[in-house]
């Protein structure tokens, strides 16, 4: 490995590193504004100047490739003077409004001016004033503060794949803007706020809410989709103020989707804080004793076979486990987690996971989507596909038309017959596929929802296994699940599958075979109420709560500890941030109360028992945050029936996909803007 001398210390560095990276290896911190690890190099802020031997001038370390034998100094007089000069120029036009700036306390410019700033200004002229730009309901702008680092522009074009930000004008008149001040059409737009080193781009919903040092910071996991992005939840008192990404290279890197970031204001609205009972068609406030009495007497009066339970999209493993235990104790097997009848095969864990893992998408050389729209269904995963496309030109093909994915792809068929041709190696694409070394096939829930769902899943698996694409080193078989509770629910066998009938629950529901339906935070099930008695247990008054006969308030995902398994099979912990509001009780405690009333015993005596029981049921578990240990040799193969039909990709109402998002004002603003945009597109 080549060597470089930094501050008289010799260190080894990897080929292709920049001087700045080498300096970091040596433990010398370099101040910077424009440089960012995950974006291309711009080299325009000049803050990272260092001294290089044999160079008259200081060099910009972020843009200079490190070379053998370079002698770099990062702490000399010359360096300090150079950086002070750069800082003085940056501050020439930067307003002194830190006391009213939302970036205050976490501002790169503020922090660095502490070391390189002068105590007074020598600038006597007027400061430049820049008109604020409209960038949509998520991003608040204060463009006078902008120091033109262009991080936001590079993020939008490179990572988000929506080239809508740009720098117009030049010199002193340069301004950052979106094209004609339209809002950014990206699900990742919120990340430019984190990237902005100053307070030019700040969060609109969080404007003037709190100072960073007042907030309690809790590291947790996102539940808005099945990706399980790592997040930091900042709370003030009992309120969740904002959600920020947390670095996890194997899942979300350092980005999160807008829904993850901004749906948190939905945690304050539409909340169920007290138990309710429907009397004469109206929901009347009640108390726990009355509700438990009513529910238990109702349950006792109904044949257990006619009782059913459905779990929602954001429930944790413990909740599902204790719910299942309650339902079994009541004597029923009618429970389900799926919102739409899509085919699953729970026999082996490989059948329902994203086996290739998100990180390995970067090493892939062929990607085939079958009935999936990763942009809407798993935004962070889509960002990874785009990253792979940008860095190595990953060829992407799709069966079915998912619309704009932020990278180019080729549609190679829109019917199930095309899938048959692919599986039977009758089409060109199968040959191309077989020639690739590390291919990835992603099957979406939309494909599994088709009549030939079983054929697709089993057929593709069969094809991949026979061609050696499922082995210890590489597993090309991937299912793209949409909800954070899905993998956990399959692991805990929370479904009603009888032998070959995958949709027993849905058929019974259709035939009106249930007299009592227990919804656990579930709002997405397509269902018409007739005479059923409906119990809704959850945090938000949404679709089902409106038609419920009894409402049991339980905490949202930020208010109770919970285990989640993401779509790759990683077991992760979501942590309790604030106390549940009102008189809501944790889910498993409610089940305990009910079971005690009906069967006279508790399901779990304490939380530890619940956790241990739940963890023991997780299949192929290898501990927290790691990928499961999967069987790749003994794959059980099945056959499904092919029905000729078109592959329709179900349109997802991205900003309204769950109860918390629907309660969020920010999300409804986003939806409004988006629908307006679509209208504009239609009218010209």
């Amino acid at each position, binding site marked *: 490995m080549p060597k470089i001398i930094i501050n008289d210390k010799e260190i080894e560095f990897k080929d292709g590193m920049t001087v700045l990276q080498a300096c970091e290896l040596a433990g010398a911190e370099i101040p910077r504004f424009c440089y960012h690890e995950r974006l291309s190099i711009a080299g325009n802020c000049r803050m990272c100047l260092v001294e290089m031997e044999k160079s008259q001038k200081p060099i910009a370390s972020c843009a200079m490739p490190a070379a053998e034998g370079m002698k770099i100094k990062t702490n000399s007089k010359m360096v300090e003077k150079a950086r002070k000069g750069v800082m003085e120029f940056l501050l020439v036009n930067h307003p002194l409004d830190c006391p009213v700036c939302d970036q205050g306390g976490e501002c790169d410019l503020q922090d660095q001016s502490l070391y390189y700033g002068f105590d007074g200004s020598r600038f006597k002229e007027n400061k430049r004033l820049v008109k604020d730009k409209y960038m949509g309901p998520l991003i608040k702008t204060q463009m006078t503060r902008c120091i033109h680092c262009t991080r936001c522009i590079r993020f939008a074009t490179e990572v988000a794949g929506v080239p*809508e930000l*740009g*720098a117009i*004008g030049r010199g002193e008149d340069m301004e950052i803007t979106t*094209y004609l001040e339209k809002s950014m059409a990206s699900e990742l737009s919120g990340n430019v706020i984190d990237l902005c080193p100053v307070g030019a781009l700040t969060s609109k919903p969080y404007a003037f809410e709190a100072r960073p040092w007042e907030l309690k910071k809790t590291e947790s996991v996102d539940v808005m989709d099945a990706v399980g992005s790592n997040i930091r939840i900042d709370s003030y008192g009992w309120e969740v103020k904002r959600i920020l990404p947390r670095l996890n290279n194997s899942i979300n890197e350092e980005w999160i989707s807008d829904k993850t970031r901004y749906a948190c204001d939905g945690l304050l609205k539409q909340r169920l804080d007290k138990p309710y009972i429907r009397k004469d068609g109206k929901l009347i406030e009640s108390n726990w004793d009355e509700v438990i009495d009513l529910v238990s007497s109702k349950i006792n009066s109904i044949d257990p076979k006619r009782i059913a339970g459905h779990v929602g999209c954001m429930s944790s493993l413990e909740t599902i486990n204790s719910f299942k235990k309650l339902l079994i104790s009541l004597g029923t097997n009618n429970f389900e987690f799926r919102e739409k009848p899509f085919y699953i095969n729970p026999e082996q864990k490989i059948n329902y996971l994203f086996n290739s893992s998100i990180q390995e998408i970067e090493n892939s050389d062929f990607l085939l989507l079958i009935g999936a729209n990763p942009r809407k269904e798993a935004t962070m995963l889509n960002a990874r596909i785009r990253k792979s496309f940008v860095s190595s030109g990953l060829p992407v093909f799709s069966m079915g038309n998912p619309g704009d994915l932020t990278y180019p792809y080729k549609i190679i068929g829109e019917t199930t017959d095309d899938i048959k041709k692919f599986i039977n190696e009758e089409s060109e694409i199968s040959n191309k596929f077989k020639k690739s070394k590390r291919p990835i096939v992603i099957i979406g829930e939309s494909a599994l929802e088709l009549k030939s769902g079983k054929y697709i899943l089993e057929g593709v698996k069969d094809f991949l296994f026979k061609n050696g694409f499922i082995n210890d080193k590489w597993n090309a078989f991937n299912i793209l699940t949409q909800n954070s509770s899905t993998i956990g629910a399959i692991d805990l066998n929370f479904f009603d599958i009888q032998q070959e009938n995958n949709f027993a629950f849905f058929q019974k529901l259709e035939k009106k075979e249930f007299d009592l339906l227990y919804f656990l935070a579930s709002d997405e099930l397509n269902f018409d109420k007739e005479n059923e008695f409906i119990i809704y247990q959850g945090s938000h008054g949404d679709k089902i709560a409106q038609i419920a006969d009894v409402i049991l308030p339980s905490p949202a995902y930020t208010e109770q500890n919970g285990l989640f398994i993401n779509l790759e099979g990683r077991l992760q912990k979501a942590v309790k941030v604030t106390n549940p509001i009102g008189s809501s009780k944790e889910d498993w405690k409610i089940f305990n109360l009910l079971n005690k009333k009906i069967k006279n015993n508790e399901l779990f005596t304490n939380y530890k028992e619940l956790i241990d029981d739940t963890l023991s049921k997780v299949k192929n578990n290898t501990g927290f945050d790691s990928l499961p240990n999967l069987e790749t040799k003994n794959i059980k193969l099945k056959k499904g029936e092919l029905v000729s039909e078109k592959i329709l990709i179900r349109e997802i109402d991205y900003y309204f996909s769950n109860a918390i998002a629907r309660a969020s004002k920010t999300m409804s603003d986003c939806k409004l803007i988006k629908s307006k945009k679509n209208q504009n597109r239609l009218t010209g």
Partner: protein
Amino acid sequence: MSLKKVHHEQPEKFEFTQSNFDLAKKILEKYPKNRKKSAVMPLLSLAQNQNDNWIPLAALKYIGKFLSMPYINVYEIATFYSMYNLSPVGKYFVQVCTTSPCALRGSNNIVKICKEKISKNPSELSENGLCSWTEVECLGACVNAPMMQVNTDYYEDLDDLSAEKILNSFVDDKPLSPGSFRNRKNSAPEKEKKVSNGIKNA
């Protein structure tokens, strides 16, 4: 120079005329197929020539589509270069050079005359809508200072009197022909056609 403002009244549509379209296709041929974007600057000036010396937003969009590049990038380029006008400049667009050599030879007076004859502020249309003026940096004709450029023509070797005459001619829509206004041939010596060492045509 300040940031260019997009005109408040915009035409709804823009399309190259057939001859310009053919020309644009020819321009595209000069660049490699995967570097189509490089043609953005000639196409912008083509659009400007076609549309009375200014580029409407519809044209930016049209060129973006033509070269399959994001609109914002076309917009960035159009705002970066001073030669592209994003709002109407009239039939006669007067650009007065005010860089040092011209300034030394009295271009400030010409600016003053522009203010009187055309409009109070730069980049503002005259009352009859035929002219506008602006100050620009060096146009590379220092030998004939002071000078100004009107559309594509240079009016050189000006003084207050000739400047007034020229500007009047534009306002009246009867333009004088360009060139030196002291009867010089290009930038050749004015009286004796000699160079210092006595060498002819050195």
